[in-house]
């Protein structure tokens, strides 16, 4: 079921919000008891049912008052009664927030994140907390203190990361949409592995107030859905400047996206617009070693779709992209070392006090609280920030990033869109890369230029691999990347894709 189908059914009275929440809660309980749990939701919030019942009463009262009152209610609260999943690093007031880390055990969010508050204001129901890689550091959701989130299609495989939980709950029809976060591809990658749509908005479009920081110059909240419209509507109600986040900015097309999605469906890019469109494919990504031929084939089919629609598609040379992975990890690890220094056992969550003084408390709390990947990144972050040890590594990375931003911005003066695979392979098996951090980092090689350049990009379900030994075809995603604040454009292209491939997302077969 999609958000627009649910909205229509809620308006007609053929569906209740309470039924949507009960279905999710029942599936969560059943999953916990299964032999190989998916482990996507960590908890269903205890007040989700009562909030859903309150929404049902509000809808019933408006229906009783007449058609005009009902329409007014759904205009003022376009997401009324719609439950959504929340990644475990986004604050929901009064609820646990742990970033899937032992160090935040016992922490309860004292306020709502702005994105959460705006969704609640629009009538949406916070349904539950979703699993992730610890502090959003990972590409598979295996680095979680709660254990991995498995892929809904075949539980031998990872769900992608770091927002594996939010992606899996949407693909498994446990939530209509969900919120994740991105620093280097953590929404688009799991969207691709789980076969759904995942949007990484322009840096600043969604406020980060109440979202636990990882790499502050890169972090952004993202949205998972089974159609582009299911992403556009939550985006339109959450987007915009926020007093509490100085890096936030208005999205020029938010009002148009809201009216399109509430009045029917998202407008697809027209044939006329396609014929005027210029699409760039970076040569550096086509020449990547380790690109799965089946991913290459699906990407080629997507390219042909653009050509058939009338767009001009050209391969472009952006040599600086070869340095994007190293550049990203130097900057992200530096920001990790700085941001995570606040977790010292004094103000948040867990405290391990050997009774020997401050330093001993900090060291014991952090050593027992952080997992191996987080420790690795903090240590390397402190290395690259130290000129004594690494020289000018950090400044060099910042210089490469600035150059990349300028070159990508220049590219958009000629081209409307950049397209490329989301990752070199489809989902891999659990444990395959767990002990090999470099192999894990390479999963992000096609996604991180978007974060470094602060542009927007949507992962689109584009095809499937051949059946595996269990007869399951694992999904493959392709990303459409637009310029800063180009969300409306990439969503309209994605809607055109959806119109030509109806119900391509995983989970759409269950209405």
């Amino acid at each position: 079921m999609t958000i627009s189908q649910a909205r229509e059914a809620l308006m007609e009275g053929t569906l209740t919000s309470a039924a949507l929440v009960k279905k999710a809660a029942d599936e969560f309980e059943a999953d916990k008891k299964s032999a190989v749990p998916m482990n996507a939701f960590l908890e269903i919030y205890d007040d989700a049912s009562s909030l859903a019942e309150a929404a049902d009463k509000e809808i019933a009262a408006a229906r009783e008052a007449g058609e005009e009152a009902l329409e007014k209610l759904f205009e003022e609260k376009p997401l009324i009664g719609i439950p959504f999943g929340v990644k475990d690093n986004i604050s929901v007031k009064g609820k646990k927030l742990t970033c899937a880390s032992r160090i935040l055990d016992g922490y309860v969010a004292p306020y709502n994140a702005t994105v959460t508050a705006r969704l609640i204001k629009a009538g949406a129901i916070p349904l539950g907390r979703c699993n992730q890689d610890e502090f959003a550091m990972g590409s598979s959701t295996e680095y979680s203190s709660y254990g991995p989130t498995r892929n809904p299609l075949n539980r031998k495989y990872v769900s992608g990361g770091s927002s594996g939980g939010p992606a899996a709950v949407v693909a498994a029809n446990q939530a209509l949409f969900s919120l994740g976060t991105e620093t280097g591809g953590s929404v688009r990658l799991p969207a691709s592995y789980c076969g759904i749509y995942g949007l990484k908005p322009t840096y600043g479009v969604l406020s980060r107030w109440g979202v636990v920081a990882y790499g502050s110059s890169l972090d952004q909240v993202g949205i998972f859905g089974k159609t582009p419209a299911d992403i556009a509507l939550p985006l339109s109600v959450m987007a915009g400047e926020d007093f509490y986040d100085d890096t936030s900015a208005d999205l020029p097309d938010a009002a148009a996206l809201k009216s399109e999605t509430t009045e029917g469906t998202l407008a697809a890019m027209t044939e006329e617009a396609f014929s005027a469109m210029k699409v760039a494919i970076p040569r550096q990504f086509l020449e990547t070693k380790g690109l799965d031929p089946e991913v290459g084939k699906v990407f080629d089919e997507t390219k042909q779709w653009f050509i058939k629609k009338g767009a001009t598609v050209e391969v472009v040379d952006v040599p600086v992209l070869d340095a994007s992975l190293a550049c990203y990890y130097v900057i992200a690890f530096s920001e990790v070392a700085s941001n995570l220094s606040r977790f010292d056992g004094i103000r948040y969550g867990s405290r391990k006090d050997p009774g020997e003084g401050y330093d001993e408390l900090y060291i014991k709390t952090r050593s027992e609280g952080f997992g191996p990947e987080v420790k690795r990144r903090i240590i390397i972050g402190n290395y690259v920030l130290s000129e004594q040890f690494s020289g000018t590594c950090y400044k060099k990375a910042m210089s490469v990033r600035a150059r990349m931003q300028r070159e990508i911005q220049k590219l958009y003066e000629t081209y409307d869109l950049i397209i490329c695979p989301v990752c070199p392979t489809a989902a891999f098996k659990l444990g395959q890369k767990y002990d090999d951090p470099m192999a894990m980092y390479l999963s992000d090689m096609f996604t991180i230029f978007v974060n470094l350049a602060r542009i927007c990009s949507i992962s689109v379900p584009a095809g499937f691999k051949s059946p595996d030994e269990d007869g399951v075809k694992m999904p493959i995603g392709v990303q459409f990347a637009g310029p800063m604040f180009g969300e409306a454009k990439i969503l309209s292209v994605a809607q055109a894709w959806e119109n030509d491939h109806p119900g391509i997302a995983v989970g759409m077969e269950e209405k």
Partner: protein
Amino acid sequence: MNSEKRTIDEKTLDALLQLSRLSPESTNMQVLKSQVDQIVEYFGILSQYDDSENPYDAYPSTQAEKLRGDTVVKGLEIPDVKKMTPEFMDGYFRVPKVLGEGA
């Protein structure tokens, strides 16, 4: 940073653990050292880019860079703040003693 192969010796790793407020006992040092070496070596690709014409702060400006005024707003409610940590007493976060017995 230059492109030559860079490895981290044990003394540097100890210093990094101290900077990170992490104990050596909490991790397998041999595995950690080889992983850190491998990752740091990969960063060497950055040295191929001459930054003399690319200052680190020469990125395009964005809308997300203007700072708001210094406005005082209402803070969090104390009952909500108390939920952040189990160690909260008399309106303050409890910290280890630094003076007196048991310090």
